[in-house]
């Protein structure tokens, strides 16, 4: 198959990937977008087969491995609960990283296959691209693994810090650059393997000091990096589809990191250097000075909401933890039967990843015209009778508006305190992700409902 032919089809596949992302601009077009993505991938794979052009037994093995990997992937995709999306993305992400490492290794061992020169005299540009690709891929792999373990709770979410950490990372980084330079001069395979090994280590060292809750930003950042790495490999393989896709994924990860950091009103570096995560533990202890709160039970809550004319639901991370979305939906249905107007208010960084709450509510069949974003609904709290805050905390904290000393100062928050009464469903008075106390718990118009979000909501349904 001619080079022109395959180049044309790789372009088409790149365009289809663009259309896949474009589809996500509205829920209506999103499924069609996903099909475009699948079509793009199919075209890329088929064109690669045709341009390699050998349909021997190797080809059969490729198909077998494709099917094996595909089955595993399909199995995971069907089994995974929606609440586990953050760790799923992290896990999948590590695989892409490792695949990039393997491709780079293979190219290093057999450069002829990619027309990059011969062993021992690989083209300089290719050598740089390939070792950078391997290094970034390896960092993505081990970093994502740590992120996965922290999110999954297998490893403690607490940041692991030791003295001189940043210095050591810096030194290792410099070492990698030096080794790549040395590799270009000697073409020695030992140095190549050393680079890969050290990069795995860097991934671990970079991520362990970051608190578990900061993982979403980290994942997005790694996503972005791997995009740029893919584009780099695209240049090596002279493949348009990879170049376009790399740029798309690179932009996407960077923008999502930016959105998350802006939503938290923190700088990217603050996240990466382990700023907040480190203060989690201490501040949660500090806030334990006992101030009086009013606490209630399911019957109180049911009574309040039944007699309200409008209720706004504010879901947060706790809803995801408790998997309370289905119970919540039932509660809302019951309220609506009682003639109560109910809407949902979603803060841009509620939960632990962008759009987290939207997916969970979607899973529970909440119609998306009842779900509003911060700017759309924030003025409505003033006219609302009850705000039902389920597992959210930081995103309602008025300290972000009042106290310039607070770490979340300047972050936009939902004005739940403006509603006539506020119901807080959480298990204790302990703070949320940002580790700071929430003044709302002690207000007169707040009723705390201490319980697991799901259990409490189910009980309320019963009382309604």
């Amino acid at each position, binding site marked *: 198959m001619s080079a022109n032919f395959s180049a044309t089809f790789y372009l088409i596949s*790149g365009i289809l990937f663009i259309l*896949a*992302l*474009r589809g*996500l601009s*509205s*829920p209506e077009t999103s499924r069609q977008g*996903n099909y475009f*993505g699948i079509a*793009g991938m199919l075209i*890329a*794979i088929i064109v*690669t*087969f045709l341009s*390699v052009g050998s349909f021997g*037994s*190797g080809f059969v093995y*490729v198909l077998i*491995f494709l099917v094996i*990997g*595909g089955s595993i*992937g399909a199995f*995971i*995709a069907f089994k995974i609960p929606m609440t586990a*999306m953050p760790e*799923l*993305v992290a896990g*999948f992400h590590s*695989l892409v990283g490792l*695949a*990039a490492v393997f*491709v780079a290794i293979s190219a290093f*061992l*057999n450069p002829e296959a*990619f027309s990059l020169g011969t062993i021992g005299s690989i083209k300089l540009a290719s050598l740089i691209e390939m070792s950078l690709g391997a290094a970034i891929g390896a960092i993505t792999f081990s970093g994502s693994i740590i992120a996965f373990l922290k999110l999954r709770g297998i490893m403690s979410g607490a940041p692991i810090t030791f003295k001189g950490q940043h210095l050591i990372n810096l030194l290792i980084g410099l070492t990698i650059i030096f080794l790549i330079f040395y590799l270009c001069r000697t073409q020695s395979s030992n140095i190549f393997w050393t680079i890969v090994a050290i990069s795995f280590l860097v991934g671990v060292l970079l991520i362990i000091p970051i608190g578990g809750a900061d993982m979403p930003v980290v*994942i*997005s950042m790694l996503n972005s990096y791997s995009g740029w790495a*893919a584009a780099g490999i*695209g*240049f090596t*393989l002279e493949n348009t589809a990879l*170049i*376009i*896709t*790399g*740029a*798309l994924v*690179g932009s*996407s990860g960077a*923008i*999502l990191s930016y959105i998350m950091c802006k939503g938290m009103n923190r700088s990217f570096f603050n996240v990466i250097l382990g700023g907040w995560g480190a203060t989690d533990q201490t501040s949660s202890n500090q806030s334990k000075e006992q101030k009086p709160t009013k606490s209630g039970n399911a019957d109180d809550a049911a009574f309040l909401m039944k007699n309200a004319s409008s209720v706004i639901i504010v879901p947060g991370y706790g809803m995801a933890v408790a998997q309370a979305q289905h119970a919540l939906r039932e509660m809302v249905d019951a309220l609506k039967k009682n003639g109560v107007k109910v809407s949902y208010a979603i803060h*841009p960084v509620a939960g632990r990843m*962008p*759009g987290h709450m*939207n*997916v969970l509510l*979607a899973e529970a*069949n*909440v119609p998306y015209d009842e779900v509003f*974003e911060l700017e759309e609904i924030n003025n409505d709290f003033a006219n609302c009778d009850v705000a039902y805050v389920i597992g959210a905390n930081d995103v309602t904290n008025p300290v972000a508006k009042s106290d310039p000393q607070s770490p979340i100062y300047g972050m936009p928050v939902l004005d739940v305190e403006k509603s006539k009464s506020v119901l807080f469903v959480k298990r204790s008075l302990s703070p949320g992700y940002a580790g700071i106390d929430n003044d709302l718990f002690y207000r007169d118009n707040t009723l705390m409902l201490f319980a697991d979000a799901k259990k409490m909501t189910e009980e309320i349904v019963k009382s309604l």
Partner: protein
Amino acid sequence: MEIDPFIFRFSIFILSIFVGYYVVWSVTPSLHTPLMSVTNAISSVIIVGAIIAALASNSDKIFETSSIFGFLAIILAAVNIFGGFLVTQRMLQMYKKKKK
């Protein structure tokens, strides 16, 4: 007067960054989670490299060091492709059901 193909590829790269920038900003916030999973899926187009690596052994043997890495990469990328697109599909399906 021949232009180096690298310059063309570089142009494509730069323009793709612009496209990526705009296309991602135009994604509605409520679909940011599917966005993460679908970018994950499409980034496994690295499978293109894996297939070339797997099928290009120098000797007659199908499995030699370099091609084994290729085959391993195929498995990993395939997990991602199927897993990523299917889980995205599953999520988007839920956004559909809601409309009633």
